[in-house]
């Protein structure tokens, strides 16, 4: 065996390679002005190809990038996660088309960056080494910094980008420092080695390093998933970012961080359970409480969705405590459903604002039920799902999540979470009230034009998926369970 060049398995990083190539192709084609209109469709096509590549590998068992030092692994967990990211990106592209045209930000880079971000998220999901995790994280973050500030003429967009960049840079710093501590404790950045160090005898000093490392990693990841107390950026950034980007931010980037969190906490750090379980449970409850309570008083829709997304991050943190496969599977399931829901919610706003209709505050939605029945119906479905009312997928997701929690023995946490989700109904339903039960103040001088076809396609897809999964969740549940099967 050649010791200088360890055998590597290119095959194991196929999805990531396809995604990066796709992004590069889009970037190059985007240079030609005459292809401008076609770029989104090219992106869709390439994303679909990467999706097919990922689907093809499902169920084939884990394949490591290299036997000596695995770096990345292609298992069902990373593949399912990648598929979720791709689906999120496809929806984002669809709702972006008309929005980007209306704001004249329909440039090749926009879509290229989106796909780069997906490749970064996919890398994060597949990483089995802190280095590849960080690499993926930075690819994702840098793409997002640019995407958030893509509306150069818009002050809010710039403000959001700057905020996200500054805080994101801090978060990256925390993560790097945590990595350094973990390396110091175990002598390696590999997940397996760190886990082994945790499993064996360890001195107090090593223990402290490990704890410190984990703590700092949690700060960085907590920032990405907008966990309290690292959530403060969320409303401002969502409000400022181009709406489709906010949608992507609230689903994809959050999902990626969650996937890493599951891998870390469930398969690397179970040895420190006694330490992180109390910490995460308190933070999760705080996240749920802050998200839901502050959302109650929001009148700006994007800010409302931002706080709602904070609350949902809190729910998704809870089953980590159960430490069971069920718990992890329920998070994966929730992430899938959540992606569809949030894409739908932000998508409605994007589609509306692409037609020049204002949709910043609740007032702007007054009478939407009679002005735009289909759009209002979709938003209603999405909101009921976010609130967790059957027969929507949101209910199934919440049910599965809280069941996993109760089966793990955390009845009290489940009860607190459930009660706060009752609070959330108030603000979701308030939007429905405005749409259906308030007449428009004055007939808004809206463009009578048709809503963008691509945007409506995305929205209808989301709404149908929400209803379908709400009634027949079996297949998706199995997929989620299959995904976590390979996690130790």
């Amino acid at each position, binding site marked *: 065996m050649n010791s200088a060049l360890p055998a590597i398995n290119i095959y194991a990083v196929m999805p990531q390679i396809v995604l990066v190539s796709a992004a590069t192709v889009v970037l190059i084609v985007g240079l030609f002005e005459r292809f401008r209109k076609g770029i989104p469709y090219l992106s869709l096509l390439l994303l679909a190809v990467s999706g097919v590549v990922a689907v093809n590998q499902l169920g084939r068992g884990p394949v490591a990038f290299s036997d000596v030092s695995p770096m990345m692994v292609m298992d069902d967990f990373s593949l399912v996660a990648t598929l979720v990211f791709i689906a999120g990106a496809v929806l984002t592209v669809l709702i972006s088309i008309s929005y980007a045209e209306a704001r004249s930000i329909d440039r090749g880079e926009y879509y290229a960056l989106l796909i780069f971000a997906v490749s970064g998220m996919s890398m994060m999901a597949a990483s089995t080494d802190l280095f590849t995790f960080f690499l993926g994280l930075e690819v994702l973050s840098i793409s997002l910094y640019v995407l958030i500030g893509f509306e150069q003429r818009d002050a809010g967009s710039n403000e959001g980008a700057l905020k996200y960049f500054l805080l994101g840079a801090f978060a990256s710093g925390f993560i790097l420092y945590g990595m350094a501590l973990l390396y110091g404790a175990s002598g390696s950045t590999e997940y397996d080695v760190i886990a082994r160090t945790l499993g064996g005898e360890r001195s107090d000093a090593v223990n402290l390093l490990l704890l410190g490392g984990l703590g700092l990693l949690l700060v960085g990841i907590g920032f990405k998933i907008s966990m309290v107390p690292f959530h403060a950026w969320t409303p401002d950034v969502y409000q400022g970012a181009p709406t489709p980007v906010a949608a992507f931010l609230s689903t994809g980037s959050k999902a990626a961080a969650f996937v890493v969190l599951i891998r870390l906490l469930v398969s690397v750090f179970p040895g420190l359970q006694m330490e992180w379980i109390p910490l995460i449970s308190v933070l999760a409850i705080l996240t749920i409480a802050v998200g839901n309570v502050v959302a109650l008083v929001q009148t700006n829709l994007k800010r409302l969705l931002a706080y709602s997304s904070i609350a949902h991050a809190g729910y998704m943190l809870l089953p980590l405590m159960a430490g069971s496969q069920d718990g992890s599977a329920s998070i994966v399931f929730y992430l899938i459903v959540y992606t569809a829901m949030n894409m739908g919610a932000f998508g409605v706003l994007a589609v509306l604002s692409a037609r020049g209709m204002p949709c910043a505050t609740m007032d702007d939605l007054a009478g939407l039920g009679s002005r735009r029945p289909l759009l209002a119906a979709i938003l209603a479905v999405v909101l009921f799902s976010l609130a967790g*009312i059957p027969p929507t997928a949101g209910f199934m997701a919440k*049910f599965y999540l*809280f069941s996993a929690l109760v089966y793990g023995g955390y009845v009290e946490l489940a009860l607190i979470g*459930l009660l706060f989700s*009752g609070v959330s109904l108030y603000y979701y*339903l308030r939007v429905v*009230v405005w749409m259906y039960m308030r007449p428009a103040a004055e007939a808004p001088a809206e463009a009578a034009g048709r809503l963008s076809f691509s945007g409506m396609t995305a929205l209808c897809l989301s709404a149908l998926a929400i209803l379908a999964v709400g009634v027949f969740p*079996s297949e998706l549940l199995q997929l989620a369970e299959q995904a976590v099967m390979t996690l130790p």
Partner: protein
Amino acid sequence: MTELPYLSLIIWLPVLGAVLLLIVKGDTAARWVGFGVSALVLVLFAVCFGAFEAHLGEPQFVERMPWIESLGVSYHVGADGISILLAGITALMWPLALLGTWTIVSERVRAYQVFMLLMETTLMGVFFSLDLFLFFLFWEGMLIPMYFLIGIWGYENSARAALKFFLFAVFGSLLMLAAVITLAFLYHQAHGVLTFEMAALYQLSIPADVQFWLALAFIAAFAVKVPMVPFHTWLPDAIVLAVVLVKMAAYGFIRLTLPLFPDALVELAPLMCAVAAAGIVYGALIALAQSDIRRMIAYSTISHAGFVVLGVFALNQHGIQGAVVHIVSLALSTGGLFLAAMMLVQRRNTWDMDAYGGLWHTIPVFSAFLLLFTLASVGLPGLSSFVGEFLILVGVFQQNILIAAVAATGVILAAVYMLRMYRKVVFGPLTREENKRIRDLSFRETAVLACMTLFIIWIGVYPNPFLRTMEASVQKLLVQTHRLAETPPAGMVPVSTESIPPADPAGPGGPSGPDATPEISQDTR
């Protein structure tokens, strides 16, 4: 037993109708679709009811198939004597209600029909579910159509009322959800299988203190919807659906709270009875002070709902049978009263009692129907409510004389506030000009109200078919409920034929109950 999946058809046909409604154009067509579908459901139900074998006491027309296997959830429906009666009154009321509100609802007609049909589906689902998860799904899913029905077609302040109702209901339901999950978990711990089958969960033995909390969680969910005092404050604003909710919530008590938590009931049942009795009097007293017809009906519903809960928690055959009959009769009498009032308000556009008076002279047909519904609500012997209230009081009397005495005052108060309303609206001089020009009922309206009247009189005069339908099921339920109780329960004797009070000889037509025993009829005097 049967070749067609009757129950599934009954449950899902309205959804098909709702989908069909999305295609049809025009208000009239939408009305016909809504009415047609609900009438079809009624026909299907009638076939089903005809084939129902009352003496079995077991769920019949059972359909079962795996649904979400990894969560242990199956699609399992079936009808026993209690559920078939409640589903029956739903099947009957729906076409009548749609017909009755034919012209009353003139805005967004299509959406109205869609939500009404969806609500019928969820109601039927609640009654027929034999799987706790399925039950919860329908239970919670019902909130969506209800929310829109209250919010869009309700009266003033309706958006606020809808929100208030939704929040109340959801908090109750979430507690129940936590309890449902815990139940499944406990079952999994004990038997190693994950299931939500009600029949399996009934067999679970749970420590008494855990039972207590779980029972409270279930009671919270149902008490909000019944509505029991002090969870009733949403009702006066959202009266439209009150009758429906009473039905569901009481069914929840009967189907779940009683058999699941027998030990907890030892402590909780007397408490529930006391609260229910207080609610009866409270509702009646407040109803007495209303001059708004709608609010008066709302508070009278609170009072009547107290009777239903009282009957259920008497935990004996009389009480429970009485409660079920009372629910059915409430749907008819209060439903009829409200429908009639809506017809009146459609003509005059005010709910204020004082704005009427002397209607007897101008619209005698309406006044006659209103009289009948009023008397039915009061509990006049020979009309439906009397049977229910009587049985409930007999049931409670065996448990606690004091509570029975307090509850009985509710009947008297009902007579006072109901007749006061009737006097103000119908009697007296015809002073107002606009009351003189008022139209009497149309043929359609007359038909709807007559149909309800028919059933009110039937139940009042000859309730035995109804009692017999549920007798075996109630007995089975009681065996289940008392499986661990130490003292042998009182009143386990079947009560179908022998203890029915005689109908008032002066009551409208029909023979008095042939098997009435004299000593019980004395109690009523």
